[in-house]
Structures are given as C-alpha cells and as structure tokens.
C-alpha cells in the first residue's frame, strides 16, 4: 500500500513571504500522479496543483509550484507571496494506476498566514 507522509502538522508564514510544505511518499510504482489539495475553514476540498510522475518538469500554477524529486519520492509545495486566503489545511495525495483512481492522502499540514 502507498503511504503519504506530511511531516509538518502546522506551519505559519507572514503575508507576502514564501513557504514550503513537505510531502514524501512510498511506492513501488513507476507511474502515478501526485496532488496537493487545499481545505480552507469552509471545509471545501480544492485542487491546488498536480504532477504526473513521468514528467520531469515541475508543475506550477500561479503562486503555487512543486519540487518533485522522483528518486527521493518527495513532492513539496511552494507557496510564493503568501496571502491571508491561503490559510488552510493542505493535503498531499497520491494516485496510482489501476487503483480505481482513489486518492491516498497524507495527514495534512495546517498553514496559517499572518498579517
């Protein structure tokens, strides 16, 4: 079974600063997808960014980017120019082929952006 580990239960960053959230995973698969989801206090799960394992180029979405290190099985999320609205739980998730497309989530990192 795949495990996803987020080693930082809580983090804090000041507005306009940059913060990096860590995620490591364990798998014997060579092809898979990785995701970061955001869950603000509203409880809604929102996709932030995703990365295909076969792509070497790191995914970026506006202020969000990932550092994907396949050999190290690491998938960190960098948030640049942090905004108050970025305050949320952030979940790293793994999906493998032929798994029924289920997302395997880490335990989450609670990010607080302060003024």
């Amino acid at each position, binding site marked *: 079974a795949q495990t996803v580990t987020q080693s930082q239960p809580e983090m804090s960053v000041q507005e306009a600063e940059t913060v990096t959230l860590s995620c490591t995973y364990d798998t014997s698969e060579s092809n898979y*997808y990785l995701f970061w989801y955001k*869950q603000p206090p*509203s*409880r*809604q*799960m*929102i*996709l932030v960014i*995703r990365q*295909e394992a076969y792509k070497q180029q790191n995914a970026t979405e506006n202020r969000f980017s990932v550092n994907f290190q396949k050999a190290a099985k690491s998938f960190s999320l960098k948030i640049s120019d942090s905004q108050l609205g970025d305050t949320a*739980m952030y*979940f790293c998730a793994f*999906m*493998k*082929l032929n*798994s*029924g*497309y*289920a*997302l*395997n*989530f880490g*335990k*989450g990192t609670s990010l607080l952006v302060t003024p």
Partner: protein
Amino acid sequence: DTAVSQTPKYLVTQMGNDKSIKCEQNLGHDTMYWYKQDSKKFLKIMFSYNNKELIINETVPNRFSPKSPDKAHLNLHINSLELGDSAVYFCASSPGGGWTDTQYFGPGTRLTVL
C-alpha cells in the same frame, strides 16, 4: 450551478439509527467517490463507482452501503450508526475515471452520532 452537491450538510442522530447521505453531480462525470474525514482530518477512500458499477470497496463495515441509481448520483446509506461513524463524509466525482482526471469534491456532510 453547484458542481457536486451533498445533502444534508449536517446530520445529528442517535446511535443505532439508520441514515442516508445523498450526492449529486451535474458535471456529466462517469466516476463518483465517497471519502471519510475523521476527527484528526485524515481523509480515506471508502467507495468509488464508475458508470453505476462499484470499482472500489475499501475495508468499510458492511453497515455502509453505497447506492448509485444513475451515474449522476451516489448515495451513502449507513445502518445501525455507531459513535465511531462521526466524521465528515465527502462525495467526489471525476470525468471518466481515468487516472489523469481531477476529482471534484462536494462540500462534505458532517455526521455526528450521539
């Protein structure tokens, strides 16, 4: 124009009762999912359906039974509710069930069993 909707959003009930949570998606997606988020915020897959056919059935007590009357709906029925069933239940859907597809989540249903 809600994409994935769930009813109710909050459900408070007594132990031993039977309850249902409904999920509907208007995105034309083929695959739907149920996830459970426990009190520590951990999210875990429970079931998934592709075109009304069950494709994932994780180790979930058989008191939980998903029902998909059509591909736009996936309801979750829970019999003989227990205290440990208290959680937030999320429905999600994705376009074709392909692994490249993004899953879109509903707003969640907070179930409290007293």
